[in-house]
């Protein structure tokens, strides 16, 4: 039997052996002391502000229009926070990236599809990013209630854990993958631009009637 993926959900029809393996994996995750990735958000914000400041100053100095100034600004914010979201698993960064993407769509209507394509790529990245797995392991170790099967398995297992086989070294890439995480990440990243696109369409439609 292959090792259960501790980051996924336990199948409802899992056998007792699978449930036990799952619980063991979860326990190993927990006892190996995972910590969520700590992205220095203050530094990220400062760097973004500095880059935006320089970009704005340069473009304004070259007599560009406000739209020309804002477009790259939004793009920088979208990419920066999108990466933080994807690699650092910081939820609020997804919110910021989505908002920046919405700004892009408002300024340039025809970028909706490319923006959505970018959201798909980032979401796929979230699907395999170790940062997300670490946050989930940390969550699993701190606040998630165990299912009845896990309770039984935990109760029956000895507490000794072979730390030399810690999950961080041995778990293969496919074990990081979570399809539901990809869908959720895509929704968070794409909601703002979709909302902006819909609003623009709706306004155009109602005023054109």
């Amino acid at each position: 039997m292959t090792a259960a993926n501790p980051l996924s959900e336990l199948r409802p029809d899992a056998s007792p052996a699978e449930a036990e393996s799952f619980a063991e994996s979860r326990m190993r995750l927990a006892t190996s002391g995972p910590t969520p990735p700590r992205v220095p958000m203050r530094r990220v914000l400062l760097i973004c502000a500095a880059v935006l400041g320089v970009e704005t100053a340069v473009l304004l100095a070259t007599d560009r229009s406000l739209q020309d100034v804002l477009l790259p600004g939004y793009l920088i914010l979208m990419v920066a926070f999108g990466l933080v979201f994807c690699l650092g698993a910081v939820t609020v960064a997804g919110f910021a990236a989505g908002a920046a993407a919405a700004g892009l769509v408002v300024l340039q209507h025809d970028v909706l599809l490319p923006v959505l394509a970018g959201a798909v790529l980032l979401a796929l990245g979230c699907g395999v990013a170790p940062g997300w797995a670490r946050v989930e392991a940390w969550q699993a170790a701190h606040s998630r209630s165990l299912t009845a099967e896990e309770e039984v398995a935990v109760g029956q297992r000895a507490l000794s854990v072979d730390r030399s086989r810690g999950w961080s070294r041995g778990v293969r890439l496919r074990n990081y993958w979570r399809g539901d995480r990809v869908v959720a990440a895509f929704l968070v990243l794409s909601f703002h631009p979709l909302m902006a696109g819909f609003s623009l369409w709706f306004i155009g439609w109602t005023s054109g009637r």
Partner: protein
Amino acid sequence: MLVEQGALTEEQLAAALEQHERVGAPLGAVVLAKGWVTRRELYVALAEVWGADLAFVDPVDVDEELARRFPAAMLARETWLPLRIEEDGDGRPQVVVATAGRPSAHIAEEVVQRTGIPRVRQVVTTDWDVQRALRTVWRDELVHDAVSALAERRPDESASTVFVWPQIAAAIAVVVALVVGAVLDLPTTLLVLVATVNVAVALAVGTKALISTVGTAWETVEQVSDEEVAALDDADLPIYTILVPVYKEAGIVGLLMRNLADLDYPREKLEILLLLEEDDPETLTAALAAAPPDIVRIIVVPHSLPKTKPRACNVGLTFARGEYVVIYDAEDRPDADQLKKSIVAFRKGGDDLVCVQAALNYFNAKENLLTRMFTLEYSSWFDYTLAGLDKLRLPIPLGGTSNHFRADMLRDLGGWDPYNVTEDADLGIRASARGHRVAVVNSTTYEEANMAVGNWIRQRSRWIKGYMQTVLVHTRHPWRLIRSVGPRQTAGFALLIGGTPLMFLATPWLYAMMVVELLWPGVMVPALPQWLVDVSLANLLLGNGVIIYLSLLAGFKRRTYGLVPFALLSPFYWLLHSIASYKALWQLIVNPFYWEKTNHGLSSHVQVEDVPELADGPAPVRAAASHVETVQPRRDVVRLMDPSAVPVPPPAAVEDTPGQIEEDRA
């Protein structure tokens, strides 16, 4: 002495002494918790050690006229009561009191002061006898205190008066102005009305979005770490009281026993008060049939109106002996380390911290669509909104359960308002208004999500009605509120607590405007300017967008990604809120104190037949796996799983009396 009597073996005494050293609980509490002696045996020994007679008190033996001179709250706290006046050997009157603690000069002084009779004879009785007599003889006083104490002491803070005259006058003035305005200039009146509603809705939605976004930014911050919990010494832990109000929930009393048995806290320092209503014999029968361990005390709350949960909690607070008090519902499954985390949070939080709120979430999230939506909503509220309120230092409306209090400060605040049907939210705001602070702690209690629409609407209409009551109470003196909590906090309170019902009430009208505008473009223009129609539509669109987005984020804190797509259905879920809000508004006017009962125990996750017998010991530790190794010392796991660890209460008056040394000798 117990060893001499053969009630305790030498080995048991040695083990009890070791436990006594470890947890710092009186030896009597330890041997009771171990089940090695009966309460009667213990008190017989204590009476002998203290050199006093032992009496088992029958409530009918208490002189009611004498009883009236002593307040029930004081007697409940100090666990003694006056019995009768008799003549001593010289024919002089003396007062007989029964105490569950060591006879003391303090009791004698109190009796002399209240009766003027200088002779006092103190006999020893059990704490249970004291409490039973209190519940019987002081019944009317207990009910009166539970129902009317706040309304009498601080009428301005009680919802017993729904509307005060200035509010009624203001409401009448607004209605008259609208009618007159409509007659004189309908378009302008409509413009003002619709614009005002739009501004209010936009502010309410915006505030919620801002607060929740702040909370999102702090999603991995732990208020209390596992290391801090592990560093706690059992000997330093105070007595903790758990209040569990139950009404017509006979089926889940056994489950409650199992859930609370999982708690990682010394049994000797735990007190569980099961608060049952007098007119609910089925639940009482079920509770007795479940044979709860001695740690659980069943308190039958005398019948009175309004029949609300806060009234029962106030009665429970009177009998609570813990330094800290927490409320759980019968079906709650708190994290095993929640009490310890709360202790750490209180110790770190400063003297003004009156309450620590744990997060609530649902164990039956995937049961149906409604439970999924409910879980998303709760996740957003408890994981992000409350965290945001905490970070921004705004008043926190408490959630229904898992709010941990400093008992003395809670009593000073006047307890819960029995007339407010969201007494928890009201208490959080009242605490802030009185200069106290409420904080959140990173621990979760798992509850049963409401899975039936009718049941959900009943519950939600009560919550919304309670929010309305809370706003009405705390805006009676707006300037006083601003002075006491500050303008930013007042605005946060008004927009979050007041804005929420307003948002629900306004939503159907905004939808109606949208439908009319879509079906008959421009038909509203004679009455409303086009820009306002557009703003209203944009407001509705944006508001729904915000609600959906907050729900999208809600699944991330607990990594329940499977729920996230359901966030797209939030607008429909929020329309249910609108239905509930109109029901709430109607009830606020015609039946303000009516407590819409929520039926619990409907989920397949809480089928009682799955509950193990208490005699089999606590269930396997349900806490996350890490708790087994990193949060709890291993001996705690063993202790929790040990059938002999079925909790038994501490003897009431022993732990806080000087009699401990004598008891140890016993």
